[in-house]
């Protein structure tokens, strides 16, 4: 009898051993639980909030939902910078870098407002649907987006991601919002939206569903009564023009092409005085380095208060400068009203958005409470609001 197995026998033995090992490993693996993730509670800010000169009007009650509420403002060049002890690198992503609503962050970079806080801010372009995963993992620090379905689901799965800063609400003169094709003789008030097709950039997963739902409600229609077609920005406009969709959400300045055009009507847009987007922080700023998160918020608030406090487009020189910073055309910026910049977050906005997501079946019930999705403590500390 040979002392050593033949190569063929050895191969058989190795194969059998590998299969047995695989089976054993599989049995071991499938028998245990791998879904032990639970949502984290909102961290409480530890820093003592001190009053901040220049920001006496830097806070409004989140429960004030009046459409005529004046947004919070600090005096120009306040709150004063409080440089961090060490230079801190922060990565911010946004879906686009040239849109007007990016103005405050891009001006803050250009004017050195972040540098005053000893922050080195790197702004990158990335779709928010990709960036939310990186934000959740802590691989980026800030995401310029909105509390969309992806963010809500990430929070529901236990990731610490929160909406910490608002961005803007539309000027009452703006007609960015739902535009509809009218049939013969119809007026905006008579439009029956049931069964209609809506063009949308991101379908039911977007925060835009909230104002769309408000418009639908005015026409006795529910979100589930209409169909959404997911189209890119250009196709959205074309589809509304050629009848591919019955209605669409049009952004600045796309709605200008439909203004005063027979056969089209503006039904409504973003709720007045209520930002529905802004900055989302991930665990790197919510957990590990809250001081940097506050410094970032402070720089943003100072920039808004200094450069975007009012009708900033009234100054053609600033429009020119802003266009240059954004890489946009001055005439396009000047064609639509100034945005009402607003760093605060209204009470109930995420609740209403979540309700839409649950109805649209892109978020499973139950909805999360607001404190799991919103953290106002960064801008509160930056403007010296306590309590």
């Amino acid at each position, binding site marked *: 009898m040979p002392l050593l197995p*033949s*190569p063929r026998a050895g191969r058989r033995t190795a*194969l059998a051993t*590998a*299969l047995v090992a*695989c089976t054993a*490993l*599989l049995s*071991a*693996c*499938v028998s*245990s639980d*791998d*879904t032990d*993730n639970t949502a984290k509670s909102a961290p409480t800010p530890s820093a003592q909030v001190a009053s901040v000169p220049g920001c006496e009007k830097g806070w409004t009650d989140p429960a004030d939902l009046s459409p005529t509420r004046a947004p919070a403002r600090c005096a120009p060049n306040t709150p004063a910078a409080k440089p961090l002890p060490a230079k801190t690198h922060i990565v911010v992503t946004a879906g686009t870098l040239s849109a007007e609503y990016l103005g405050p962050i891009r001006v803050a970079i250009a004017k050195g407002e972040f540098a005053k806080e000893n922050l080195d801010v790197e702004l990158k372009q990335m779709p928010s*649907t*990709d960036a*939310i*995963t990186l934000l*959740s*993992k802590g691989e980026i620090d800030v995401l310029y987006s909105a509390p*969309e*379905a*992806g*963010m809500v*689901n*990430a929070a529901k*799965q*236990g*990731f610490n991601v929160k909406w910490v800063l608002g961005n803007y609400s539309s000027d009452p003169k703006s007609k960015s919002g739902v535009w509809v094709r009218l049939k013969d003789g119809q007026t905006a008030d008579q439009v029956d939206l049931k069964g209609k097709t809506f063009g949308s950039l*991101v*379908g039911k*997963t977007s925060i835009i569903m909230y104002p769309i739902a408000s418009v639908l409600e005015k026409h006795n229609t529910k979100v589930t009564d209409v*169909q*959404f*077609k*997911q*189209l*890119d920005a*250009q*196709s959205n406009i*074309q*589809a509304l023009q*050629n009848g*591919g*969709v019955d209605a669409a959400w049009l952004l600045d300045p796309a709605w200008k092409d439909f203004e005063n055009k027979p056969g089209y009507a503006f039904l409504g847009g973003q709720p007045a005085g209520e930002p529905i987007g802004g900055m989302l922080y991930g665990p790197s700023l919510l957990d590990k380095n809250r001081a940097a998160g506050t410094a970032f918020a402070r720089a943003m608030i100072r920039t808004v208060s200094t450069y975007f406090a009012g009708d900033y487009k009234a100054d053609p020189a600033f429009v020119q400068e802003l266009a240059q910073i954004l890489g946009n055309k001055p005439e396009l910026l000047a064609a639509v009203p100034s945005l009402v910049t607003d760093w605060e977050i209204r009470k109930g906005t995420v609740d209403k958005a979540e309700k839409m997501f649950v109805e649209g079946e*892109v*978020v499973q019930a139950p909805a999360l409470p607001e404190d799991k999705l919103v953290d106002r403590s960064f801008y509160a500390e930056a403007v010296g609001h306590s309590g």
Partner: protein
Amino acid sequence: MSDGTTEATEAEAAKAEAPGTAATTPDGTNGTVGTPGAPGAPGTEQAKPTPTLLLTRSPGPAELDPDRARRRRRTLEITLGIAVPLLLLLWWQLAVQQKWIDSRIYPAPQTILEDGWKRLVDGKLWPDIWATLKRVVPGFLLGSLAGYVVGLLTGSIPLVRAALEPMLDALYVVPKLALLPIFLLIFGLGETPQIMLVAVTVFFLIWIQTMAAVLAVPEGYREAATVFGASQWQMYRHILIPASLPPVVVGLRLASGMAVLVIVASEGLASPNNDGLGYLIFNAKNIFDQKAMYVGIITVAVVGVLFSELVRLIGRLLTPWAPDRRGPGGS
């Protein structure tokens, strides 16, 4: 030339290294047989006749029992084909269990399979599979047919080749997804832009493969047909089409994979009815539903493999004269 001692050593080494091979005498007994050596080169000292070895090889299992050997080989190949991906899946599962990776971002295979099975049983997955197939299959057929016809013409008629090849070469390098907005403009919203996108993708692959195959048909075949007085149609029917089909079938398999790839990306960009596997994947990503995303990815892989195998099967039926170039086990 080696001397006898060296040859004996080499023979022993060969015996040790190659089972079934032995230095044997013609009657089968092991040993060396002395035979007259070759004469030395002119002008060199004539050596004594050098004994050389007669090497024979004992029949191995493949020769003694070919059917059994083939069955065993096939079993081994199938086992390896299953075991390698299974091992990878096990490592993935283990990595999740041991928390080497975050299960919320990379759900365990077990979780994905359970979710996928639930979607299948609940009937939630079938509409997406069906929607994708409704776009892939017509697009694939349309693109294949057009590509084959144009490939035959450009391969066999130099003037047609001169007229079309530069333009088609230029269009070939255009990223096909970049054509989607144009197709949306031309055909409007609906299934047609998606089908056309698949058709265009498949067209170029089949066109190039067919043209190359026709150009590679040996001139002797054509000459023989000409000598026998074959008409233009008979040249295609009996020479060019049979000779070009086997490589085209290979191209069809490549194109089937590309078709699935393109439709998934296209559905992710603009799905007309918010359905299809691409929509499932991209929408799941949008709403941070990683399990659904992986279910979609795996379903695409399965659909892609089945589609490719179907194309191969049909290709084999269409080209029974084509050589079977699969491995020794035939798998």
